[in-house]
Structure formats: structure tokens, C-alpha cells
């Protein structure tokens, strides 16, 4: 999902001898569905896993502002423009909120941003795909935010308190994002032939990347078991992916659009089974070779560098005010 990099960089090993009593107590609290709070003792691996997961989620929100943000200036109606600004603003808000949640684990936002800009930190690969038409904005809302909700609703019950609470608010807003995306898609699907073509083309391009957002199949996912035991994660990648497919295929049918998968079929239990996913593409994008990886990071770096003098001025002004207050 928003934390694919976990697979490449497993958390640092816990310090040689974790206090086994404290460890048992910690696990007992988790098993009892208690929330772990910032000042509570926690295993180092739990802390590192959460820092990585929360910060990658935050980075994804921040980078995720870019592909849709490019359409703000050209949104085709004032209503759509308002909705899109509000949505992209929400994403920035989620980023800020999640960086704060990560900071409760003892790492500064500036350090996390540095990790993003230097290319050391990962963010969701989905944002490395381009948005060539307006229908991509609709498809991102419908499919990408739809997939995000599948993953994030269980995170509202994550064992780490600050993350779980952040996710409650994030999920409420994501649900608005998904609805507006679907509604925008519906307008296109019910629109002119040119709009319908645009909608189908966007579905063709976003369908498979959206399915890959849930991460590799369970058989290839190294960290699911530990994350499930610590109740950072409640469902496996494949469980969530199946839920998303079952939810989304009927929506596509209602729109009158064709899911780009000749092997898609409903099994006897009513679940939709897809054809095989092309994981080589997923891995290529994850490794930095996707269509827009370089552009996205370059854009973030440019904004950060161009704003350096502004941040310095704010600090200098605050220091002057503090000095005047003392004088």
C-alpha cells in the first residue's frame, strides 16, 4: 500500500537483548487491544517499523499532491476546481498530520523530509504514474483513494495510538475523495463519446497499478506476519486486494466501463478473480524506473530549495521577536 519500501529495507534488528518480561507485557497489551502511546515502552523493531510506515504514508500524501495538482489550473468547471483544491489540500493536511504522528516516535519532520528528497525514503509507487487527461483525476479518486480506504480503515484500529487516531480523520476525508472521484467518473461515463473514451482510457491505465498498491502477494511478503502480530496490520495484502476487486468491479460495470482484464471472472463464492498481475512492472516502478519517479522527486526538491530563503527568514524573524521581547 503506501508503505511498499518496507519490503526492501526491513527494520533494524532489535537490540541484542530485549527485556523479555517487558516484551511479554507489551504483547499482552496488544493482544488485549490496548493502544500503545508515545511514552510507553516498545520494542525497537516496532518503533522502526512504525516510523517507516507512517513516514512513507506521509511522503505518499505529499508526493500524491502533484499528479492531481497539475489539473487544478485546468479543472473543467468551477465546482470541479473547488473540489480538487479541497482534495489536494486534504492530502497536504494528511501529510502534515502523519509527519506529526511519526514525530511522536522520536524523529524530526525535517529528517523525514530529507530522507524523501534524497531518495532514501519510499512513497507509494502509484504516484509515479502520469495524469495525462482529466479522467486520470477521476480515476485516482475512484481507484487509488478507493484502494487506500481499504487499507486505511483497518489502520484506525492500529495498535499505535497516534497513528490510529490520525487514521480516523484521514479515512473520513479519503471517503469524500473516493466519492468525488467516482462521481467525476460517472459524469464522464455518462458524457460525450470523447469523455467516455477518456474515462475508459484512464481505467485501462490505472486498474493494474491500483491492484498493485496492496503490495506483493502474501507468499512473497516478508513482514506481514510480524505486523499482524503487532496489530499494525490487520489484513494481508491479498485479503485487502480481493476486497477491493469485489467492491470495484460492480462499480465499473455500473459506469458501463470495461475492466481491462480478459480473465476477470466471478467464482462460485461470488468473488471476482483477476488475471495474473505483472509484478515486474511493480518492481521496476518501486526501484525508481517508473514513468514519473524522477519528475516527482525533482518537483519536490525544487519546491524545497526555492523555499529555503522563506524558511530562513521565518526563523530569523522569530529570533528577532524573541530578542525584542527579552530586551
Amino acid at each position: 500500500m503506501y508503505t511498499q519500501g518496507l519490503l526492501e529495507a526491513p527494520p533494524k534488528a532489535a537490540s541484542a537483548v530485549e527485556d523479555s518480561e517487558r516484551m511479554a507485557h507489551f504483547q499482552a497489551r496488544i493482544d488485549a487491544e490496548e493502544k500503545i502511546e508515545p511514552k510507553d515502552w516498545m520494542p525497537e523493531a516496532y518503533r522502526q517499523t512504525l516510523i517507516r510506515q507512517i513516514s512513507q504514508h506521509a511522503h505518499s500524501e505529499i508526493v500524491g499532491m502533484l499528479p492531481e495538482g497539475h489539473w487544478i489550473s485546468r479543472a473543467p468547471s468551477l465546482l470541479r476546481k473547488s473540489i480538487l483544491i479541497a482534495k489536494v489540500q486534504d492530502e497536504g493536511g494528511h501529510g502534515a498530520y502523519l509527519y506529526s504522528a511519526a514525530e511522536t516516535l522520536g524523529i524530526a519532520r525535517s529528517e523525514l523530509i530529507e530522507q524523501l528528497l534524497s531518495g532514501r525514503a519510499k512513497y507509494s509507487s502509484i504516484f509515479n504514474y502520469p495524469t495525462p487527461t482529466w479522467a486520470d483525476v477521476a480515476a485516482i479518486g475512484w481507484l487509488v483513494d478507493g484502494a487506500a480506504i481499504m487499507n486505511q480503515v483497518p489502520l484506525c484500529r492500529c495498535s499505535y495510538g497516534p497513528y490510529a487516531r490520525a487514521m480516523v480523520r484521514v479515512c473520513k476525508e479519503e471517503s469524500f475523495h473516493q466519492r468525488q472521484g467516482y462521481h467525476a467518473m460517472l459524469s464522464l461515463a455518462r458524457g460525450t463519446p470523447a469523455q467516455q473514451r477518456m474515462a475508459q482510457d484512464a481505467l485501462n491505465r490505472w486498474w493494474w497499478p491500483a491492484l498493485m498498491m496492496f503490495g506483493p502477494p502474501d507468499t512473497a511478503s516478508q513482514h506481514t506476519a510480524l505486523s499482524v502480530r503487532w496489530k499494525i496490520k490487520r489484513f494481508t495484502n491479498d485479503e485487502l486486494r480481493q476486497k477491493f476487486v469485489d467492491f470495484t468491479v460492480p462499480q465499473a460495470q455500473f459506469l458501463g466501463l470495461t475492466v481491462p482484464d480478459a480473465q476477470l471472472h466471478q467464482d462460485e463464492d461470488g468473488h471476482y478473480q483477476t488475471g495474473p498481475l505483472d509484478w515486474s512492472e511493480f518492481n521496476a516502478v518501486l526501484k525508481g524506473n517508473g514513468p514519473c519517479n524522477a519528475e516527482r522527486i525533482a518537483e519536490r526538491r525544487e519546491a524545497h530549495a526555492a523555499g529555503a530563503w522563506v524558511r530562513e527568514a521565518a526563523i530569523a524573524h522569530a529570533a528577532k521577536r524573541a530578542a525584542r521581547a527579552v530586551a
Partner: protein
Amino acid sequence: MNAVTTPATARELTTYVLRLADTSLVLAQRLSAWIGHGPAIEEDLGCANISLDLLGQARLLYAYAGELEGAGRTEDDFAYLREECDFLNATMAELPNGDFGQTIVRQCLLDLWRLELFEQLTQSTDMRLAQIAAKAVKEIRYHGRYSSGWLVRLGDGTDESHQRVATALVMLWPYVAEWFAEDALEQALAERGVVPSVAAVQAGFEARLAPILRAATLTRPSNVDYRWFGKRAQHSEHLSHLLAELQSLHRAHPGAQW
């Protein structure tokens, strides 16, 4: 009470409302370009917030202009299907963002002017305009706090930031003049109490600006002779580019619903 009693007044008021609406829309469009590109996440959010408010104001004003005009034009007809020579926004709103300092100077000047203007418009004899102004003024007060806060920070920050906003202020100041060059339309509406007198708005603007420039350690530039008149559709070179982008998708699909 409604001030619109004759077709001539309705035409004048429509034009005036479009001036307000176009300024809001064009400024919203400019500011929204900062979303995802600001110096910090909080500034992305601040610019998005203000842009969204401005867009909301534009939509209310376009709806009212459409009713006054009575020709069935919608907010999107006004925003997407008029030419550059039909737009009546204050010229300053259409000027490029430049760096963050230039954006802040532009925003602060426009906020302080619009705050004074909309505060006085809440007393309009045209009830609808007064209501729209009453809603907008709450938003503009916040916008002014944001932009003046940043202007003070940058003016009284580092040597570099001071220099940048001082240069931007000199560059932007000539565009202030148009706001206070009262024309026949404004005069006629002011006589009927529909809009405030330009002189009263100018006095309020200057009173609000002076302490902010002082705190920002900036000097108010002198007035210049040349006046821009975006409000009479005499624009800078920049508006047509802005509209080309804003209107491109809408115009590519005539009659489509979105």
C-alpha cells in the same frame, strides 16, 4: 431593499459584480499554483485555503451577475466562455506569482484593499451584494492575517528576504492606483449607496497598510503616473495566458457536463 430599480442600474451592477468576481477567480487561479510547491506544507495549505475561499466568492458573485443579467449565463459561462477582453478583474490579480515573496506582497495588498472594500460593501443598499460581502469579509480578514503575517516575517527577516519583498513591493505598487481611480460606473453606484466611495476605501486601505509596512520595515513606494485598468478590460500581457490554461479543457468539449 434592492438597489436594482432600472435596467440601467442592473447593467451597471452586473458590471461591478463581475469586476469583483473576476478578481476573485483570477487570484484564486494564481494562488492555486502554489499547492504542492510552497516553501513548507503549511504554506501549501494556506494558499489552498485562500484559493478555495476566493473561488467560493467568485461563484457566489457569478451567480448573482447571472441573475442580474437575466440572460441565463451560469458561473461556468462567465469563467470559461468569456474572452480576455471581457474580463474585468483588477490587473494586479493576474500578475505572475514570482517567488513566494512576490506572491505575499500581491496577496497582502489585495487582501487589505478587498477587506476594506468588502467591509464597506456590507452596508450596500443592495441586499444581495451586502450579504455576499458579509460572508466574504470573514474570509478576507483571515487572508489578510495570513498575508500580512508573512509580509512582516519576510520584511523583517533576513537581508535576502527583505530585499526580495522590497523589490516586489516596488514592482507591484503601480497596480494599486487603478483601485482608487474612480470611474463613472463606480461613481453612479456610490451615489445610490450600492457601493462605497472609492475615497473612503482608499483611506481605510492606507490606514491598514501603514502599520504593516512599518512592522515589515518596508517603505511605501511613491505613486506613479501610469494606471492599469483591468477593471475596464485593459489588461497586462499575463491574463490571456492564464485564461488559456484555465479555459482549455472546458472549451475543448463544448457543451459537455463534468
